[in-house]
């Protein structure tokens, strides 16, 4: 199903990717600009530090050059590219002392329970002025695996089955992470507005 969902879809720079895969190293020059912004943004959302994001951005392309022969053309190139970047970002985050991918998670209360009785949502107030800024700031406090699913779904506009490929996890896990991520974000926004 995942394969079917990602097969036969056209991508920007597809010709360049095909040329690059067949050994034309110069084709990378045409691929890089196509994915520059999206890849950098994704990495920045993941690691939150511009210098680290840039380093990982460069490492991603080095890895792409090394591993391009293993890219399965039945899948979308961007999903494969983001999975390469994602793995590098996760490796980087794991090396941080005391870091946990799903830290700042769980207070023992079920998400649905927290939704119950929330009353008027402070987000409505947020929307009146700097909704996006506060959301971005709140998102930075989420665990990495939740930032990942939110940015891939809402900024990269990836479908859940594509996110499953990028993150290398089952679709059911992606759904549950999306649920938890949205809930966690909401709690953080509420905390900021109190």
């Amino acid at each position, binding site marked *: 199903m995942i394969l079917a969902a990602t097969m036969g879809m056209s991508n920007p720079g597809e010709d360049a990717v095909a040329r690059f895969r067949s050994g034309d*190293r110069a084709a*990378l*020059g045409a691929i*890089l*600009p196509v994915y*520059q*912004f999206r890849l*950098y*943004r994704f990495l*920045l959302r993941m690691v939150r530090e*511009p210098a680290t994001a*840039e380093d990982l*951005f*460069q490492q991603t*392309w*080095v890895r792409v*050059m*090394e591993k391009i022969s293993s890219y399965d053309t039945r899948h979308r190139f961007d999903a494969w590219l983001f999975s390469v970047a994602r793995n590098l970002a996760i490796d980087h985050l794991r090396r941080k002392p005391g870091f946990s991918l799903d830290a700042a998670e769980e207070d023992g209360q079920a998400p*649905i329970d927290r*939704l*119950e009785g*929330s009353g008027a*949502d402070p*987000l*409505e107030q*947020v*929307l009146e002025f700097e*909704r*996006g*800024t506060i*959301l*971005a700031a709140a*998102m930075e406090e989420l665990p990495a695996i939740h930032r990942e699913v*939110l940015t891939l*779904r*809402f*900024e990269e*506009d990836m*479908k*859940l089955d594509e996110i499953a490929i990028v993150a290398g996890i089952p679709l059911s896990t992606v*759904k549950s992470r*999306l*649920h938890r991520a*949205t*809930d966690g*974000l*909401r709690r953080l926004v509420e905390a900021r507005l109190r």
Partner: protein
Amino acid sequence: MIPHEDVRKMLALAAAGELSAEEKRIVQQHAAGCDGCRRELEILGMYARGLAAMPQPVVPEGLLERSRLRVAEAGWAAAEQRSRDLVLALVVVLSWFGWAGLWMVVRVFTGGAVSAFGISTLLVWTTAGVAVVLLGKRDVLARRLS
């Protein structure tokens, strides 16, 4: 009839536009008669729209050029490593051929009196040692230059 709690679990997916047509119909039908779920759906929809409209980062100036350079450097390093591996493989192959040839010559002149094992050991280790020293010196020089 889908239980209320099950519908609530579908709301985040509904806000993300990730429900099938049938699931969407179920949620909409439920929300039409449930104030809590309708309200929740509206709120989650606002979050979804807000996430898609977050401030966008600025790509650092020169990122492309620096990336191209790094990729090129990595390519050169990989090519150099391959050529080094090739040289080492050639050294090994040549040393074994050299050993075999020398052994045959020595046998002819000594009638088998000189140990083939001693000669081969000496030849192989000498060749390998020279190769390692040369490659090591080259690496040190490359590091100094970089």
